[in-house]
């Protein structure tokens, strides 16, 4: 009987610790490391914007919350609140582009209007432009 209780206690304790461990792990889990993550899609800014403009529902299903590596020409560079960097990449449209918000501590001097860049980040969806977050500069 005593052995049985000990085993039971051991099992309960094991699951309790495993549960607490998992909870702590999940709670403190960091965002995906975009620098190490493999892109789900490699696409030009022109094609990406066009995909959303042609069919927002289909493009949302395909690209949102996926890691995209996009290539295109820098239209403008802006620093916002807490020096967060927003880089607008040209699309084929005059009215709508691809806006990339970079992870903190990205140097705005790395971007000049008119230069071609490759950016990797997570697609958040379409507002008036295609929006990308947690971006890093690949090239």
């Amino acid at each position, binding site marked *: 009987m005593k052995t049985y209780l000990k085993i039971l206690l051991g099992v309960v304790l094991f699951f309790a610790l495993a549960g607490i461990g998992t909870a702590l792990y*999940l*709670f*403190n*889990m*960091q*965002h*995906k490391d975009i620098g190490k993550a493999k892109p789900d899609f490699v696409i030009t800014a022109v094609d990406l914007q066009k995909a*959303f*403009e*042609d*069919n*927002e529902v289909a493009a*949302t299903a395909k690209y*949102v*919350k996926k890691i995209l590596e996009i290539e295109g020409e820098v239209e403008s560079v*802006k620093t*916002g*609140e*807490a020096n*967060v960097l*927003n880089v*607008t990449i040209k699309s084929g*449209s005059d*009215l*709508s582009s691809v*806006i990339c*918000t970079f992870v903190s501590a990205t140097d705005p001097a790395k971007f000049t209007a008119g230069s071609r860049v490759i950016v990797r980040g997570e697609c*958040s*969806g*379409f*507002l*008036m*432009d295609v*929006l990308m*977050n*947690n971006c890093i500069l690949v090239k």
Partner: protein
Amino acid sequence: MKRIVILFTISFLFLAANGQKFMTKNGYIGFSSHTAIDDIKADNNQVAAVLDISTGDMVFQVLIKSFHFEKALMEEHFNENYMESDKFPKSTFRGKIINLSSVDFNKPGKYDVTVDGDLNMHDVTNKISVKGTIEVVQGGVNASSKFNIVPEDYKINIPGVVRDNIAKTLEVTVTIKYAPVESK
């Protein structure tokens, strides 16, 4: 179809402007929650905002998925459980500066304003009235505000397990730097 919608929106919102409209697609809206257990903060630097200085009309629009949290799990819960951002991807505020006459857009300086309007998120629209500041600067207009919202007012259900970790009222911070819309 999308192109027509965008063209219509743009022409409706901006081209009738005659230099009276200001906009940005890089505005900031953040919110924070403070409790004894946890401090939570989220930032969105992709706010689209339009201001018409002739009428005082203001429109703000954000993608819910553009809010960034420090912890990945919080961002996931925020999107999947609370805001249901797959079903309700956007939030919009449409309002008006009700004391527009107290702002001189030709004279640089800070002006206190009150903005009344409709805030839509999570498929619920509520009337809100917030105080803020309009700052007229060289070549543009800045707008800022801090106000509180109650998640329950927008049918955002926070389960009992984490209810004590999230404040009953959230403080929202808005910081917008508008640039004039060039009339074509």
